[in-house]
């Protein structure tokens, strides 16, 4: 996952891409190709596509094929099996809750990082990146150290649903922050001052002027953090105990199905997660296109 890279303006150029339907215009100052494919570059494209297919496309396709092998009833049976349904419900509700927390706290953190100055701010910047950098299994270990049985605070969330929530919070911390931060930094202070000069209170200015400008970035960050949360595995393993019907999440169900030699059921649950990933990507691309159009 790459929250720090995900949603910066200027990183969206690729997503915008050339609009194939638009009337071809004469290319202006610094055109970006397209060069014509030569024998060498054509070969390169072939090799690259082959590698990408072998690595990602064909395996992901295999998940869908495996799911469809049993037909619709088998799929429904797999995902409504009580233990699986409980795991999926837990995953989705906790992911939604964490996303809500991130929308508020992420925006707040971004606000403080952009608009406030104080000693140690740089350290906070590094703290934001740590969940992204840390191996997920280590993240679990880290949380156990403070919120586990022998934590100095005397709070023990291990093997409870709160552990799932905490782990999700930790791994998704950077998404909204890193998505909102650059937009907020670019935001024209003049507009806020104009609003203030027109008599708006600070809260009104924030709600009517700043928030709408940040909304696409917040949504994109929220989408990424939701996608990350529902697919999380490593940070939970040591923390949540994977108790069936209580703290077991979707990805753990996939793994246990697979280990029990039930690849079809594993694929069914995986397809659900995969579908959500695709939806998230689509959402973000749509948002970026919208933002790009708005200029």
């Amino acid at each position, binding site marked *: 996952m790459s929250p720090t890279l995900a949603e910066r303006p200027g990183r969206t*150029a690729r997503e915008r891409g050339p609009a194939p339907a638009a009337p071809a215009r004469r290319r202006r100052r610094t055109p970006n190709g397209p060069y014509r494919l030569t024998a060498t570059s054509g070969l390169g494209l072939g090799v*690259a596509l082959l590698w990408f297919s072998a*690595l*990602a496309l064909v395996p992901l396709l295999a998940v869908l094929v495996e799911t469809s092998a049993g037909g619709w009833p088998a799929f429904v049976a797999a995902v409504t099996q009580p233990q699986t349904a409980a795991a999926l419900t837990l995953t989705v509700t906790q992911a939604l809750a964490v996303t809500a927390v991130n929308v508020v706290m992420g925006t707040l953190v971004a606000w403080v990082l952009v608009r406030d100055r104080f000693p140690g701010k740089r350290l906070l910047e590094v703290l934001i990146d*740590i969940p992204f950098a840390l*191996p997920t*299994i280590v993240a679990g270990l880290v949380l156990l150290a403070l919120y586990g049985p022998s934590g100095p605070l005397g709070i023990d969330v291990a093997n409870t649903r709160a552990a799932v929530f905490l782990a999700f919070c930790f791994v998704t911390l950077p998404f909204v922050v890193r998505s909102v931060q650059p937009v907020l930094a670019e935001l024209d202070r003049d507009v806020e001052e104009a609003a203030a000069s027109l008599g708006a209170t600070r809260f009104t200015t924030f709600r009517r002027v700043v928030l709408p400008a940040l909304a696409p970035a917040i949504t994109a960050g929220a989408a990424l953090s939701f996608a990350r949360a529902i697919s999380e595995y490593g940070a939970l393993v040591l923390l949540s105990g994977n108790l069936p019907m209580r703290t077991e999440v*979707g990805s753990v169900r996939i793994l246990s199905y697979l280990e029990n030699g039930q690849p079809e059921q594993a694929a069914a649950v995986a397809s659900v997660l995969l579908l959500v990933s695709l939806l998230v990507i689509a959402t973000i691309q749509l948002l970026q296109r919208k933002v790009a159009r708005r200029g």
Partner: protein
Amino acid sequence: MDSSPWVRRTLRAVVVVYLVLLVGWPVSLVAKNAFADGLETFQRAFADPSVLFALQLTAAVAVQVVLLSTVFGVGISLLVVRYDFPGKALLNALLDLPLSVSPIVVGLALVLVYGKNGWFGGALEEAGFRVIFAPPGIVLATAFVCLPLVIREIVPVLTELGTDEELAATSLGASRFQTFRRITLPAIKWAVVYGVVLTLARALGEFGAVKVVSGNFEGRTQTSTLLVEQRYQDFEQGTAYAVAFLLASVSVACIVAVTLLRSDDAAPARRPARPATRPATPSEVDA
């Protein structure tokens, strides 16, 4: 909009407390736990052949993944930005997919194709090439999750760069390859470096996908992250903390390095420049 001092201080306090409770404190505790018995834990951990093997395996996988990702990442970025071909828009969208797929799904997907009963797995195994439950599977799984990192760094830089410099080189007689080596590559050098460092950090820390495809055989396919899990569950917490601390240090160092380099990059004024230059007036400076 300058908030009043107390609003600012409250917000600042909330954010600091949140980050310290969620990240700062827990992370520092792991460091503390790792050094609880001084260096003894480390000495004991790194005398364990399984630990040494896991570290070596992780390093070897990371190196291979970095090489694969770099070559593939640079190549596909050039193709996607500079060339036109049917299906380009679709490829563009799909390249980001690995970022939001669950590691467990990645593992499952690879098992379904390269496992013993998978689409290609049987044939490969008959040809004497084992993927799943063997190091190649670990490399594949890690490469999958790292796939977009290099590309996401290079593509914006390449797009921003435009083709003028490349065309200028061409008109001066340079071949495609000469143009790439002498003009394009120096221009995207830092993006490649960032991509490589981020890939390295990710590759060292991958857990879920590797857990599914590796089989987790101690001394054969157990990577460092898998070892951390196993040792923790086997109540050898000292070893778990020591290895975790090592992994965490390298990954965090990678990220901090990129963050620092990047903020240097963003402020060219701070870059060492040749001395005694006449400062260009604003009207003369163009982006």
